[in-house]
């Protein structure tokens, strides 16, 4: 029987008062991992993280130890850049970590810096998380005062600074090279790769860009050990994972589990299932950028590899649950409104394509579409996907491609009847695209 229920390690005390304070964190074993790490060599830490199989929690699932190993150790200075831009629709796990358990991230940043030989970490937090930023900055101040950051940490001779850098409203800043551009004081637009950030990142120096949850896993790997870490969860999908469940469920929230858990256990168990006596229509398993899964796929294992085998992606583990009142044309229109707004404008196929897709979806949703529009949507999508510098283009077309694939009959009904055939009571009364 695979382990699903486990002792919580990422968010064990987040509902307790003062869980964000240094005293609370120290009383629960905090900064012990940093002490352990400073007693090893940096290479040993990288080997440990590699052996743990920790995969990036930001969306791509790339092995963190490999990323750190690729950082060019011949060039100084080097940087850890923490991606706290959490902007993928449906994702809210890093918010909880930073607000209620910020010292875990600070400790992860310090260990990361030690491992790659950096002495500065920047945490790039989205501008809308100003209240979270205050918690994080207070935690950093506490860590400096107690000697866990700053000069000669714990008498080891290792120096480390952690700074918080506030963004100002740009989804694209979550893309690692766009984040680096933004941190350098420019528009958040992606760079061409190669070179990857490990070779030429922040200020052209070797950098590791890691998600908040990823860095929060690092102290756990160090303190619990590789054997424990790999023993929970399926092969190559080890360690604790945070899931964000939202949409039409009874108990939306952040849930910690091993990646043995299935989508059914998350949606029907943890989140209490679909609310108001409705039935499940679809699940988006990894944020708005991934293909939809249908109710008969709920037994899919919610791991990076499990969701991929089912034809989608775990992404940022943002599970959006949709009930039978949801119009799928409306859904595509809602998400393309998002992508059209957030396209950074650097690559023409994405900048123009997202606008065209949104216009066509809005007119179909209003009942002014034609049957030929369905082929037009598919054609535009083909000309955006794979034709942009970053993954945004592929992400943006996914809601269109996936709804056309599974719910083409709804598109056809809109065109045939000249209206939205599923105007849910929770939607705005005004027509889509009216302003």
């Amino acid at each position, binding site marked *: 029987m695979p382990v699903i229920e486990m002792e919580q390690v990422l968010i064990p005390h987040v509902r307790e008062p003062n869980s964000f304070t240094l005293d609370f964190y120290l009383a629960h074993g905090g900064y012990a991992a940093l002490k352990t790490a400073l007693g090893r060599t940096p290479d040993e830490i990288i080997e440990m993280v590699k052996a743990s199989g920790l995969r990036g929690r930001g969306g791509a699932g790339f092995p963190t130890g490999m990323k750190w190993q690729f950082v060019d150790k011949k060039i100084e200075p080097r940087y850890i850049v923490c991606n706290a831009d959490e*902007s993928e*629709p449906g994702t809210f796990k890093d918010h909880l970590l930073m607000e209620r358990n910020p010292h875990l991230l600070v400790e992860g940043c310090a260990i990361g810096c030690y491992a790659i030989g950096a002495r500065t970490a920047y945490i790039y937090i989205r501008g809308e998380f100003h209240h979270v930023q205050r918690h994080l900055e207070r935690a950093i101040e506490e860590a400096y005062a107690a000697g866990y950051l700053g000069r000669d940490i714990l008498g080891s001779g290792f120096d480390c*600074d952690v700074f918080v850098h*506030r963004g100002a*409203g740009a989804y694209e800043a979550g893309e690692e090279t766009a984040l680096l551009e933004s941190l350098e004081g420019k528009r958040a637009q992606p760079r061409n790769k190669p070179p990857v950030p490990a070779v030429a990142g922040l200020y052209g120096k070797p950098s590791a860009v890691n998600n908040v949850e990823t860095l929060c896993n690092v102290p756990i790997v160090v303190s619990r050990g590789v054997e424990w870490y790999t023993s929970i969860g399926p092969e190559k999908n080890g360690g604790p994972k945070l899931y964000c*469940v939202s949409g*039409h469920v009874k108990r939306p929230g952040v849930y910690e589990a091993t990646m043995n858990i299935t989508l059914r256990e998350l949606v029907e168990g943890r989140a209490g299932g679909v609310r108001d006596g409705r039935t499940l229509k679809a699940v988006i398993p990894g944020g708005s950028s991934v293909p939809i899964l249908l109710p008969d796929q709920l037994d899919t294992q919610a791991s990076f590899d499990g969701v991929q085998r089912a034809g989608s992606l775990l992404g940022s583990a943002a599970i959006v649950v949709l009930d039978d009142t949801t119009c799928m044309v409306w859904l595509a229109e809602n998400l393309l409104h998002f992508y059209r*707004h957030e396209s950074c404008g650097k690559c023409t196929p994405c900048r123009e394509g997202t606008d065209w897709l949104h216009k066509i979806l809005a007119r179909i949703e209003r009942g002014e579409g034609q049957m030929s529009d369905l082929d037009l949507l598919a054609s535009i999508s083909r000309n955006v996907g794979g034709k942009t510098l970053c993954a945004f283009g592929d992400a943006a077309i996914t809601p269109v491609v996936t709804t056309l694939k599974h719910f083409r009959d709804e598109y056809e009904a809109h065109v045939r009847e000249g209206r939205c055939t599923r105007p849910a009571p*929770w939607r705005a009364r005004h027509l889509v695209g009216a*302003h």
Partner: protein
Amino acid sequence: MSFHAKMAYDATFQKSARELAPDDAPFAYTPENRARLDAILERYPADRKRSAVLPALYLVQYQQGYITPGAMRAVAEALAITPADVEDVVSYYTMFHTRPVGKYVLNVCRTLSCAVNGAGRVVEELCAKLGIRPGETDPTGTFTLVEVECLGACDRAPVVMVNDAWHECLDPAAAGRLVDDLRARGEAALSGCLHKVEEQ
């Protein structure tokens, strides 16, 4: 940001009865804000002052409400970059205002998880209550209504960000009451982030 003029986020769409400062109006940081900027500059390598452009612009916005051409020139001078470099950034990020806004900017999240929890109704209630459309400021200069994309509080939907503060789990039918509440009690009317168990 947006390249598409008709979108509600576009600066030109924002209408306000409040007067725009003339283009040549000078700007200077208050001594407190200048000291804050100097402290922020310490975080970046000495030859990478440009990194502080976002924090420098936030300081301008907190000081005078929105970002004027004069302020962009002052920021450029402080960071040793060109005014065009600064304007490039201001025009890209959505959280900077280039026109006067109301005392309270109501940023309603409109993306999927909030939308399926009634965000569209929230916007309609607020429009009806204030007599304005998204992107506009009410005649008294108290409220600006903006629809924004995912704020990252999908489990506490629908969510509204009022200036820098959050209001979560809003009842769409009662959204109009938030306006009265803000008028009466200021930011004390807001729920804050509901993770804060200490304050519940």
